[in-house]
């Protein structure tokens, strides 16, 4: 082995050109400085607000569980919204996922399916909830519609991707026996995506429960509405109790859905 001068090595920089590297650093720092300087931070208002925040938190202690009935009604409604929306959303997501899978749908159908999924994914549930509250009025129906749409978008997209990755041999086998389109779907496609579908449904139920609290704030029913009313009436101790129960419920639902998902295949 030849022994020459010791060879050194350094990891090549991520951006090769030193000029570009320097310019980018300056640009990012400059923008940050400018953004901080121009955003309207009212320091006077902030220092005034801090004691107010402290008062709210102070008012929240100890949390009051006196109006347990109201709390229970709110949560019952949230559960109903989440369950119904998950059921509807997951069922409706199946046809849209089939439509939006490139490998089994003809191109025009594929484009329609993708469009539906993209549109239902493009707005945050809160924005959709505001629209539905305007359309069908305050209450749980607006919440159900919102979360159904949200579920179609999310489950539909992931399911479509799952369909695109199935073992094509099983589809070929069903075609070779002369099975029609629907029979091919139920025999060769659905069994392959079933575990994923169940996992996604559990996850979606979990996620809808969380979101149902949020969309309630804009008037779509459930515990969110109860929370908003409590804040509106300066019932900070009750509001705090609601927040604590929300955290507990989310923790439990996360544990349960995680356990179920692990059990399914």
């Amino acid at each position: 082995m030849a022994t020459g001068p010791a060879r050194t090595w350094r990891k090549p920089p991520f951006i090769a050109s030193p000029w570009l590297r320097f310019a980018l650093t300056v640009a990012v720092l400059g923008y940050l400085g400018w953004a901080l300087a121009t955003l309207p931070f009212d320091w006077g208002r902030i220092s005034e607000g801090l004691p107010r925040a402290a008062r709210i938190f102070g008012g929240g202690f100890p949390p009051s569980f006196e109006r347990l009935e109201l709390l229970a009604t709110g949560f019952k409604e949230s559960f109903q919204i989440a369950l119904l929306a998950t059921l509807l959303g997951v069922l409706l997501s199946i046809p849209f996922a089939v439509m939006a899978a490139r490998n089994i749908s003809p191109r025009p159908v594929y484009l329609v399916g993708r469009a539906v999924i993209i549109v239902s994914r493009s707005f945050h549930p809160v924005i959709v909830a505001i629209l539905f509250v305007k359309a069908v009025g305050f209450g749980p129906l607006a919440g159900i519609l919102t979360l159904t749409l949200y579920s179609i978008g999310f489950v539909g997209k992931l399911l479509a991707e799952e369909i695109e990755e199935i073992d094509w041999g099983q589809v070929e086998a069903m075609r070779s026996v002369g099975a029609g389109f629907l029979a091919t779907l139920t025999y060769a496609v659905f069994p392959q995506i079933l575990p994923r579908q169940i996992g996604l449904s559990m996850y979606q139920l979990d996620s809808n429960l969380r979101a149902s609290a949020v969309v309630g704030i804009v008037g779509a029913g459930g515990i969110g509405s109860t929370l908003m009313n409590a804040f509106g009436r300066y019932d900070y101790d009750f509001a705090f109790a609601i927040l604590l129960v929300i955290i507990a419920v989310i923790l439990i639902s996360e544990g349960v859905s995680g356990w179920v998902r692990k059990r399914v295949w």
Partner: protein
Amino acid sequence: MLEISQLVKRYGRHEPVLKELDLSVEGNSVVSIVGASGAGKSTLLRCINRLIEPTSGSIKLNGCELSTLRGQALRQSRRRIGMVFQGFNLIDRLTVMENVLAGRLGYVSFYQAWRRRFPQADIERAFELMERVGIAHYANKRADELSGGERQRVGVVRALMQEPDILLADEPTASLDPVTSEQIMKLMQTLASELSLPVLINIHNVAQARAYTERIVGLRHGRMIFDGPPERFDKAALEEVYGGIEAPDESVAPSVGEEQA
């Protein structure tokens, strides 16, 4: 009787995979198709049941032109063509019985298929065939719990459930160990003669082709270059079908020695 004439399959603007191929199979003969990978064996079989669309040419099964069929008519002809796959292509998450009954999917309504309400005659035929190949006791097991040889038996039974006029087998033994693959070849041979069914088998194993089939067709670059009984498939023919294929590039090997210098 299967009559293929002037069959061409071309992908895009590439050189055709099949070049004006003529082949006819009469009666209940077992024919093996040999050739190197990429010779067009798989494409040929898949053109027959139209899993692949032929570019031009004609394929007739018992006088019925297959290459132009569409929709319902295509599905009805596919029922009469059984296919056995290299990777078995079973529905892994369904039971053996469901896989076997899937061979009847071309005959039953979607509701029957979905609810698994297959006609009594189908269920009896399924049990008979499964008993015949020794897998009846697995009826309610999930297909992915079986061993390779057992899985391919399910594949064969599924194809036979179709009451096919012809059986296509695309390298049915390539995923199996040598002993099991002999068993499957033997099984297909005897079933073919019992049911007087013509069989087309794509196969890499020339010894098995010689032992279990009565006619060998050799493909090379999409053309038929040999057609005859196994006795005539001699060393020269073998050389012609498989020979001259470039060996894997071994030029990397010599550089290993340099390090020790």
